């Protein structure tokens, strides 16, 4: 069986089990039998975008999230950024887009999520059309130097002094990592023999650093002003500012702090002419009981004699209290975000693996 019986999915309202709506076997079958697009086919249609990012484009209709070329997923630590990045990647891959999820934290979480392991700094296919890479600034720099500066690059790359310079220069690590992400998103990749991607999803560092990350290229362009770094900085900054090309997704759990951080990210991006394309409220508890039922449960708890019943009724009430608090946080986000909020259910599972990513992708699909 593809899905373990231990994983249960609840819709946002908590009323229906999503699985009832989408027959997993049918869905899996549809995926298997759907003709796979040849790699990079989506590119031709979208190649015109690449020609446009000489200047920021902030007007005009914003295409759907998965129609973009580069999507940053950010949020406070521990809210499930990697999971959401993988789920978005899975959805894109299901639509036939050749997709890569690039991690910047150097932790290979996506690989582990798909029960792969051991590949550093190389692109690995973890599911059909879904790839992942863990980006490392040192590695990205060596690659950049090899391509850009040729023989001198080789020498610089191996020079300790130069390493010290780049690794210590404020923001340089971020710029180098972003440079690699940018490279992945280009229709003409500078890495020799590399196949282009239709979509790059970047699993960005925690929010505070995440916003900094998106601003880094612009700052660099300003500091360096001339030369290849300034050029690269400007190029990346323009790519990020181009909303047809680049999207930003924030992930939050329905708790006070992550919601605060999402709201402040929302404001801080607006100051830079950027915007959140989507907020994913992750791990939302199901609402299993209505108010009348909660009263009944409380009454039953007062009367119950058996310790096990008391235990179960107590757990029902306390889990309900949590679900209730979470709805308040969801309300805060909804009020501020006019329609760009989607939710993923909390998964009652021992840990998340490929099965759970599929389940979450099923849950997200109708919301996008």
């Amino acid at each position, binding site marked *: 069986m593809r899905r373990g019986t231990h994983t249960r999915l609840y819709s946002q309202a908590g009323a229906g089990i999503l699985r009832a709506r989408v027959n997993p076997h049918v869905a899996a079958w549809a995926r298997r039998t759907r003709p796979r697009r040849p790699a990079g086919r989506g590119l031709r249609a979208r190649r015109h975008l690449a020609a446009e990012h000489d200047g920021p484009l902030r007007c005009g209709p914003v295409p759907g999230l998965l129609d973009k070329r580069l999507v940053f997923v950010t949020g406070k630590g521990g809210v499930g950024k990697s999971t959401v990045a993988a789920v978005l990647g899975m959805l894109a891959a299901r639509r036939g887009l050749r997709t890569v999820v690039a991690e910047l934290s150097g932790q290979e*979480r996506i690989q582990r999520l798909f029960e792969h392991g051991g590949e550093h700094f190389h692109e690995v296919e973890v599911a059909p059309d879904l790839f992942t890479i863990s980006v490392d600034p040192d590695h990205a720099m060596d690659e950049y130097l090899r391509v850009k500066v040729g023989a001198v690059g080789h020498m610089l790359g191996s020079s300790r002094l130069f390493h010290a310079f780049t690794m210590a220069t404020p923001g340089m690590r971020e710029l180098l990592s972003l440079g690699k992400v940018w490279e992945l998103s280009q229709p003409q990749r500078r890495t020799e023999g590399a196949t282009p991607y239709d979509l790059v999803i970047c699993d960005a560092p925690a929010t505070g650093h995440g916003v900094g990350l998106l601003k880094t290229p612009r700052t660099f362009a300003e500091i360096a*002003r001339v030369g290849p770094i300034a050029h690269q900085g400007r190029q990346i900054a323009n790519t990020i500012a181009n909303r047809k090309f680049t999207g930003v997704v924030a992930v939050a759990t329905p708790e006070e702090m*992550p919601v605060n951080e999402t709201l402040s990210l929302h404001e801080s991006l607006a100051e830079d002419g950027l915007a959140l394309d989507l907020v994913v409220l992750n791990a939302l508890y199901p609402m299993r009981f209505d108010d009348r039922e909660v009263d009944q449960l409380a009454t039953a708890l007062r009367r119950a004699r058996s310790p096990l019943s008391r235990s179960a009724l107590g757990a029902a009430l306390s889990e309900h209290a949590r679900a209730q608090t979470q709805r308040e946080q969801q309300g805060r986000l909804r009020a501020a975000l006019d329609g760009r909020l989607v939710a993923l259910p909390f998964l009652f599972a021992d840990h998340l693996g490929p099965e759970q990513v599929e389940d979450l992708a099923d849950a997200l699909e109708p919301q996008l």
Partner: protein
Amino acid sequence: MLDGKRICVCAGSGGVGKTTTSAAIALGMAAKGAKVAVVTIDPAKRLANALGLEELHNDPRRVEPERLAAGGLKVDGELWAMMLDPKRTFDELIERAAPTPERAEEIKANRVYSELSTAVSGSQEFTAVAKLYDLDQEHEFDLLVLDTPPSRNALDFLDAPQRLNSFLEGRALQALMRPTGVGMRVLGRGASPLLAGLRRLTGVDLVTDLATFFGLLGDMTADFTARAQQVERLLRAPTTAFLLVSSAEREPIDEAIWFHRTLARTGLPFAGVVVNRVHHDLLLGSEPADVGTALRRTALSPDLAARVADNFRDYHLLARRDDHNVARLEKALGRHPLLMVPQLDDDVHDLEGLLKMHRYLFATDAERERLIAQLVA
């Protein structure tokens, strides 16, 4: 765990309740009679309000005892709290180290500096440690509790200040960059292919800006080097305790195990782990399936009873997961203590939540057992 300690560094990956745990520990030690300051980075608004931290001061302020008394806790000592302002801390550092106020102003106006002190990841960690050191030097407090900056990886806290330090004190780099140094002369002529490459790659302005920056820093870098060594000594002192905060999920537990190993390897003083949001076993030795039978004796409709049973089964899936993960952590920790705080009913971000967490953290074994028994009933 913290008796005889002067510094407690609370580390952990994001989203595990680090800030609240730091505050609860500070509160508990203050209740026991110590004068404690908690240094937090970005507390939740309600928690900040609860502690009276409406504004950034960059210096500890006393939490009025009345606030705590209103929550039902008698505090024999004093609780102080502050919210770290990284930019201001960095500026203060420069102002103190600069030979003249004019030099300090010049540095603060430098573009490389303004990047360094704000945008760069690592500046929060760097300034947090700097502030900790200053507070320790002032000898105002019996105990300082540091809530480390939010990050995905607990180890960032140890690496990041190091990176910034190596930038500030990178001697080779300074020699290269200082306008009077050999490097600049070489740069001017473009003689060395290495420097030519550097210049070609980074653009002249960046090199010039860096040169100006290091020129301005001048001999101050010696101060930074000395300071870095003192900070390092402070973090390694036997009166310092690293406390790891985790949740019971697989990833944070993996990270906790890794963090513990790294601390042991690098010889930093490790005190123990606090595991938050633990789902305790409420089954009392029964099977989840028995719940349905037990609930039949209540007045609930079969449908409602079934949902209560579903909820219980799901809850126990998490309880089993937590039990397994905590056991793994326990095994890795050896003799080091592990304190568990249960999953509390709501999001702990106010004084009430803080007091609740404090009760678990500072309970005796017998009290903790009683508290957990109350969860069951």
